[in-house]
């Protein structure tokens, strides 16, 4: 496919960690209905580490591939490390994204951060 790197297409066709975590410790949703991408990340936390991350995404090829890559980058990391994963990291690990897709289709890192903040908020209430 001309527009996307092989790595993007590979993640698009075989996305990792798809689904929901029913008893998730944190959930983050980001999206832009005008742009057409909406994604939800679910995280499971143990000993300050992300032991499981799953996603559901409505969107284009880049949106699905970046979601998949973000889960791969995040699993096993501490919360502090995961908060440092940037959109640029996700794009770089996918062999780059077309410039037009860098902004609105590359929201998965933000969704992950939202999920972590959700977890931290719930912890603070406990």
């Amino acid at each position, binding site marked *: *496919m001309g527009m*996307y790197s092989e790595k993007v*297409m590979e993640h*698009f*066709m075989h*996305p990792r960690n*798809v689904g929901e975590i029913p008893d998730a410790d944190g959930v983050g*949703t980001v999206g832009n*209905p*005008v*742009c*057409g*991408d*909406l*994604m*939800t990340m679910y995280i499971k936390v143990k000993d300050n580490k992300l032991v499981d991350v799953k996603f*559901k*995404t*409505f*969107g*284009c*090829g*880049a*949106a*699905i591939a970046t979601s998949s890559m973000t889960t791969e980058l995040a699993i096993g990391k501490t919360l502090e490390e995961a908060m440092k994963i940037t959109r640029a990291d996700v794009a770089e690990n996918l062999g780059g994204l077309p410039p*037009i897709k860098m902004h*609105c*289709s590359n929201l998965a890192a933000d969704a992950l951060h939202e999920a972590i903040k959700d977890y931290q908020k719930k912890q603070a209430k406990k």
Partner: protein
Amino acid sequence: MRNVYMDHGAGMPLDLRVFEVMKPYFMEKYGNPSSSHSFGNSAKAALDTSRENVANLVAAEKSQEVIFTSGGTESNNLAIKGAAYRNKAKGNHIITTAVEHISVMNICKHLQKEGFEVSYVPVDKQGIVDLKKLEEAITGKTSLISVMYANGEIGTVQPINEIGKLARDNQVIFHVDAVAAAGKVPINVEEENIDLLSVSSNDMYGPKGVGALYIKTGTKILPLIQGGGQERGLRSGTENIPGIVGMGKAAELAKKEMDAEGKRLTQLRDRLINGVLDKIDYSFLNGHPTQRLPNNANLRFSYIEGESLILWLDMHGIQVSSGSACTSKTLEPSHTLLAIGLAHEEAHGSLVFTMGKQNSEEDVDYVQEVLPDVVKRLRALSPLTPKEILR
């Protein structure tokens, strides 16, 4: 793997018969039609024949009423800007619709910046222009009405005859963008009271980079390109003879074969539409069920996005288009889909199938075989999909 190209609205192959007649004009008959010698004469003769063929396709009275351009976009520019500038003394008001091709939309926006007023008449849920609102929009200052013959995206064919009458009764110039329709449905510029009509070569199996504008005798427009005065001074520049010869042949073939091919495509279209709506839950037809181009099926799938659908279908050898923002250069969903009342997320999940000569019943059945699984796979990924429809 089977390959099924159903994106003829975006690009068409040349008809082999078109290719054959073009060939000599590259290496042998390369004269300039403006020259006085024999090479010039043979180019001029080819130009005249092509002009006649295009005039015949749209039932123009005189072949001189057709001039050649570089394509549909240029024809639309010349028609709309040319008429607006030339008739500014009469008024600065233009009427068009909310579902025009992006070229017409952007020409009108440009004219608004230059001080023209533009009314965008709405359409109904099936994409048919609201005739009452169109009539109400006409004022003493209206110099031009521009409405497409048919919409290349949702397939809806407009009631051109009635709009032509309205324009004629009110003595307003009537431009029709017939790029998506010419060669597919019969057009009669005389009976339909059309003053200006844009057509494109590639949309009827001719080469890319060629188009034409029909200009009814007596319709006043200003040229946009100054130069040597070719095409009656309305489109200067040495004529693209190989391209024009190809367009002429394409127009001749389209006229001859339109009836039979239209019937065949209509059957394929309805087989595709009915099959998909039957096999896939939460799928819908965009556009009018019967007043639509014979080769167009625009289908919408809830909860998923068009570019993902395109990528998956391409993996299976099927090429189509989408109205999704994610496939556009501007990241805006199709204005046409929004104009027929779809929400953004609905517009994102729309696919455009435009069939052509090489498509067969087997192709339609192959699409029906592949599409349900692709839709199911993407719905399983989507946070919008209700759990009860995922089995």
